[in-house]
Structure formats: C-alpha cells, structure tokens
C-alpha cells in the first residue's frame, strides 16, 4: 500500500528524458487523426466489407447470377435468395455481387484516369507559367461542356466500334472509364494548380532549384508529394462521382449492355417490379448509396486528417 508520500514523490520526481522516442511519421500522424473521425472509420469499414463481398462473394455464394429458372421468377426475399429473384428467376444477391465488381472497377479506374489527368495538368499548369494560361482556358472549356449529353452521344457513337475491337465487356468498360475520367479531371486540376502555385514559392523548392536539380526531378520529388492532400481528397470524391455517373448511365440504358448486371442496370431493370419484389431496386440502390456514402466519409476523414490546423489539436 503506497503511502501518500511515496505517491507524491512519484509524481514530482523528474522523468528521464525520452531520447529514442518513437519517430512519428506524417503517415502515422495522419492515420491517428483519421481514426478520430468516426464517420470516416465507419466508412472505411463499410467500403472494405463491400469490396470484399464483391470480390469473394461470387466465389462463395452458390447461385449462378446468369442462370435462368423462370419457375422461380419474381420471388421476394427468402433463405435461398436473400434479395429475391428477378423476372427470369436469377438470384439477385449473386447479380448484385457480380455487378458490384463492375461498378467498383469502373469507379476506381475512372477515378484514376481523372486523377492522373487532373494532377498532370494542374502541376504543369502551376509550374510552367507559359502553359498556365492556355491550360486553364482548356479547363474552363471542359467545365463549360455539358457532360451528360456529350457522354450519351459519345457512347451512342463509339459503342459499336469498340465492341468490335475489344469485345463487348472490355470495350464498354474502356469507353465508360475513359469518358468519365476525361470529364472529371477539371476540379482536381484547378485545386492542384492552386497548391502548386503556393508550393513553388516555398524555400525548399528554391533551394532545390538553386543546387541545379532538373525541373523534372523538382516536380516529381518535391512538388507532387506535397500536393498529396488535395489529390487524395479528390480521389475519394472522384470514386463517388464515377460510381454515380456509371449507375446513372446504366439507368438511362446507355451504359453497360443488358447482360452486365451493374448496380445502375439492376435498378433500371427492376424499376417496374416494385410491386412484386421491391428488393430488386432497393438492394442495388442501397449498395450504390452506401458505397458512395462511405467513400464520401473517407474523403472527409482524409481532408480533416491532412489539415495541419486540426492535427495539432
């Protein structure tokens, strides 16, 4: 039983200086701050569950998403078919899982395309004064383009040739990914450009340039790593946007063809069967919403975590 004296001595005694303190990297700092954002953590967990489910689900869950069995048509949820069946008797859970693969793949791939384009243009625009003006005008131009109408038109025009060259699935995938990517880079470009303009004036950049570092290396080693913050936030929002755009396209009948059960396509197919089996649209609709929600929360969390003002709290 410690005496009061001992306890006071314990508290007052000088603590030895902790040399060899664990070195905290930026990554760890960011992660710690991220974890404090409850929504972001929940989002991350949900997204992980959905991604795992779409990757492993079709392997684990027995029913074949393409098997037609008209006797089982239009059934509501049951043990065998947790989401029910569609009008041809196909299991909707299986279709949602395999459709999720396509939807998520499109989401991530389109985001990468948009991110790459946006970052490249933003960095070049911010770093090279002479290219800034024209590139920003091009960005303004793309911002003024009516995206969805052009998307619809391009898909209508190029669906057949791509189908012929790459086969149906890959052709449409490339088309949709490229189109969404090519029309969603503008925001990233603007934000990155702003950041690059600021970083360019920093002393460490001037130092690097003064010792003769080539421009290419300055960009790759110094500028880009410091623009990670807006880039990562853009990435998160880009996935959300891409998933919604793809599902909207499928809903308008202009995305993937009928045989590919992407989430948007499932909502489109099931829209008249609300009376018979509401799960047909509720399940994929909820999946889209939850995925987008999770990604948005994650983006929020990243933004908060990378904000130095918040981190120092």
């Amino acid at each position: 039983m410690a005496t009061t004296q001992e306890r006071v001595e314990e508290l007052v005694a000088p603590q030895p200086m902790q040399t060899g303190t664990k070195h905290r990297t930026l990554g760890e700092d960011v992660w710690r701050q991220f974890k404090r954002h409850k929504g972001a953590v929940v989002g991350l967990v949900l997204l992980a569950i959905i991604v795992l489910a779409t990757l492993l689900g079709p392997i684990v869950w027995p029913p074949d998403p393409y098997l037609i069995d008209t006797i089982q048509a239009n059934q509501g949820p049951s043990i065998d078919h947790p989401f029910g069946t569609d009008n041809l008797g196909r299991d909707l859970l299986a279709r949602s899982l395999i459709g999720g693969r396509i939807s998520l793949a499109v989401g991530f791939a389109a985001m990468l395309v948009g991110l790459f384009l946006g970052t490249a243009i933003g960095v070049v625009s911010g770093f090279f004064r002479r290219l800034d003006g024209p590139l920003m005008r091009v960005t303004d131009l793309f911002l003024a383009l009516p995206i969805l109408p052009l998307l619809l038109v391009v898909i209508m025009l190029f669906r057949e040739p791509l189908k012929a060259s790459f086969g149906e699935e890959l052709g449409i995938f490339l088309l949709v990914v490229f189109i969404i990517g090519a029309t969603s880079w503008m925001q990233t470009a603007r934000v990155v450009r702003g950041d690059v303009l600021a970083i360019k004036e920093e002393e460490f950049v001037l130092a690097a340039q003064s010792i003769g570092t080539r421009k290419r290396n300055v960009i790759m080693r110094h500028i880009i790593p410091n623009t990670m913050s807006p880039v990562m936030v853009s990435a998160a929002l880009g996935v959300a946007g891409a998933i919604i755009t793809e599902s909207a396209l499928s809903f308008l009948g202009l995305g993937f063809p009928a045989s590919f059960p992407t989430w948007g396509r499932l909502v489109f197919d099931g829209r008249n069967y609300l009376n018979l089996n509401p799960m047909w649209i509720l399940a994929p609709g909820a999946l889209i919403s939850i995925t987008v929600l999770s990604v948005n929360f994650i983006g929020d969390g990243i933004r908060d975590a990378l904000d130095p003002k918040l981190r120092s709290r």
Partner: protein
Amino acid sequence: MGRYVIRRTLFAIPTLVVISLIIYGILDLAPGDPAGQLPLTIPAEVRENIRESLGLNDPFMVKWLKWMRLMFINEPLNAIDSIFGTCIGDCEARDRIISWSSRAPAIDIIMQRLPQTLWVLGLAFIIGIFIAIPIGVFSAYKQYSLFDNVGSVVTMIGFSLPTFFTGLLAIYFFSVYLGWFPSLYDTTLVVNSWDTAVQQIKQMIMPVSVLSLFNAAVLSRFTRASVLDNLNEDYVRTARSKGLGERTVVMTHVMRNSLIPVVTLIALQVPGIFAGAIITEQIFRINGIGALLITAIGQSDVPMVQTLTFIFAVLIVLFNLLADVTYGVLDPRIRYD
C-alpha cells in the same frame, strides 16, 4: 465593374465557338441518316440526291460553317423577328436548322420545352439554396453540436443517394401507393386560376423536391466549410470585441465572406444540375429538353442533338458568366484584377 463584365462576356464567345466545333465534330460521326427511313424501293441515286439536298455530303468545315451561320445568325434573327414582329432581310425563306424526325425547326421545339426544364431546375435550385444556406451557417456556428452532427449525416446521405433512386422511390410511394401526386406531367397546363395553380404545384412537388434535396445537401456542406473557415478569422474576433451583436457578426460579416466560394461552387455545379435534370425528366416524364435529348438520341436525329447539346453549353456558359459577375459583385478584390 463594367469592364470586368464586358471582358468576361467577350471571353464567353470564343468558348462557345470552340464548344460548338467539338459538339459538331463528334456528332458528325454519327451513323444516323434521314434517308434511312425511306422505303427500300427508292433507288440509291435518289437517296443520294436527298442526302445532297440536305447537305450531308459536304466537307466537314463547310457543314460546320453552315451550321454556325444558322445557329449564330439565322436563328437569332428569327428570334428577333418573332419577338418584335419585324422582318429583317429575307425573313420568309430564311434557312433554319431542321429536325430530321419532325421536320420542324429544331429551335422552335426546344423553345417549347425549355420553360418546363427551367421551371423545375430553377425552383429546385432556389429552394435548395434557401434550405442549404441556413443549415450550413447554423451547423458551422454550432459546430459539433447535435444539430451539426445530425445535419452532417443527413446531408452526406442526401448527396450519396443517386437522384434516380430517390425519384423512383418518390413516385412509387407518393403516386402509386398514396396517390397524392400525379405521375403524369401535364405540359399543356396553363396556370390561370387557383385550381390550376394547385395542380401545377402538385405535379412539380416530386421532381423539384428530389432535385432540391440533392442540391441542398451539396451546398450546405460547402457553406458549412466556408463559414467555419471564416468564423476563425481575426476580423470576427474584432467585430465581437467591438460589441456587435452575434446576429450582425454572422449575418453581415461572416455570411458575406463565406458566400464567395459558395457562389463559385454553385457555378461549378451547373453542368451537374443539367445532368440531374435529364435523369429527373426521364423518371417523372416531364417533357423538358433533357427528355428531348434522350428521344433525339434514340431517333438518331442529329441536328436536334447538335442544337440541344449546344443549347446546354450556352446555358452553362451563361450561368458561369452570371456566377462570375455575382462573384465580382460580392468580392471587390476580383474586380480590380
């Protein structure tokens, strides 16, 4: 101020020209062909003649310039003539852009349907703003309160749910199940009495709500972020220490500064709003220009698609311009750029 406006307006024109080139170029590749709907017994040479007479075989630049002339000179002249009752030049035989499926001037059809779209979009936009800004300001003011947290989650859900999903659910619930609102949009309804006004409100409630909730969700988040940034600024502390009431501090000082980035954002959102309109019109069967675009694409009616896409671009550029001007009004620093 005036010079700023003129400069921005002048810049819009070359933008539109380049956009028209892009649109026209893409659509020129379209396989649609008005001669394709004629009976098979018509010999190939006659089909060719018909195509010639429609100018389909001219080289690309010729076709584009012709279309530019129609779009930028003939159509505005026609509009002036019909509004003011004048007759400029050869007003009877003036060439116009003709739709292939209805063989009527494309602009006339678009103008018939534009009000529907603008009404629904405009109302959704305005309602969205009026919901979003108070919520955003209040959430930022009472940061981390229950209101803020609940508001955050609700707005997040609001812009994560795709509009086609919420629209479908709304129709099913309110039209089919409850029977409160009509599922058919009556485009010939003329509002000239209390009853017809009620009817118009009833048929607009669902599409406007779906769109405005989405807009409000996006806007309120940005308003909140912007207000938060400003609440921590020094001038707010100064204002408070001068003894100004909270209301004045927030409404007069903070709001003005916070709205500036929000306005830019509203401008950036405009293309997305038109996209939302296309989907909403499909679901609610509003015969606006979004639904017209989908129909025209399905019928391979290339002149109509070209004109419509260009009109969308014009609207977007116009709203960008308005946003820039408003931005200039709100932020004195920009004007002296």
